[in-house]
């Protein structure tokens, strides 16, 4: 069931993003795109990640709704405009490289930045010791 609900959440964010975003941009320019992101990503984040329609149990690796937006963009372009998948590959690979680098950098920043340490004093000492061993 959790896979079905994950797929439903992905389908909804994908359909919303590419049904509405281009039209909002065409109608209202930059501000329309900004507004679309506020409305669509706001409500879809609430459904998918705050209420947990995309299944992410605590302690597991996070699966984001961004994956669904990306695959929907490629599928939408292929069906609607008859484009070919390999033409999106270079940009897609560059995006994945940039995102992966950001993930590694952010993990290291989070490990060392004091604002990301647990508030509880006892666990904080443990954490600092753990970090110093690394």
């Amino acid at each position: 069931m959790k896979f079905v609900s994950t797929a439903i959440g992905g389908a909804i964010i994908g359909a919303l993003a590419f049904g509405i975003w281009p039209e909002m941009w065409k109608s209202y320019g930059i501000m329309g795109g900004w507004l679309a992101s506020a409305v669509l990503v706001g409500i879809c984040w609430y459904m998918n990640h705050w209420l947990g329609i995309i299944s992410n149990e605590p302690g597991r690796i996070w699966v984001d709704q961004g994956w669904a937006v990306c695959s929907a963009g490629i599928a939408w372009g292929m069906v609607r405009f008859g484009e070919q998948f390999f033409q999106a590959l270079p940009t897609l690979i560059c995006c994945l490289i940039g995102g992966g680098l950001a993930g590694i950098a952010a993990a290291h920043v989070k490990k060392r930045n004091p604002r990301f340490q647990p508030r509880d004093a006892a666990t904080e000492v443990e954490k600092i010791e753990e970090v110093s061993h690394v």
Partner: protein
Amino acid sequence: MYEWMSRYVDAIGMSPASVVTTVFGAFCVAFVVIICWGKLVEDFGPAGGFIAGAIIIGTFWVMNHKLPGFGINPEGIPHPDGGSKQFGLIYQGFRGAGPWADMGAAVGMGLWVCGLCETRKGERRLLAIESVPRLTAAIAGGIVGGVIVGLVGWTGANLFGYK
């Protein structure tokens, strides 16, 4: 160096400059989402998620995906090869002839890699394997949604008498 890098421009459909801007744009949005989104939700609850959706994704959408034009009824600046010029950081392949590659992939990949780096070394493989079916389900759902929205272009309904 530049000549060597430019040799495969036609084959991969993007110039070295586009590679740099794309990787940089993807890095920026993924880093800000990983660092700020969780903290905003921690501080403000679900309202923090709405704020983050607007100010993080909206602002980085302008940086990464904007097309030229200003205000209501934007008119694109024409590209010599046809279509409109792009000013966003994430380059759309083959001068925009390829399907839309969204920055969502960068955010998803960033959060996935960050989660992988934060787990202990012995558990990484198991957790990665555990996340693959969920990842596949999310991507498959996105494909279904994208295909169905794309079908709208083929219905050809003629509404309100417009021609």
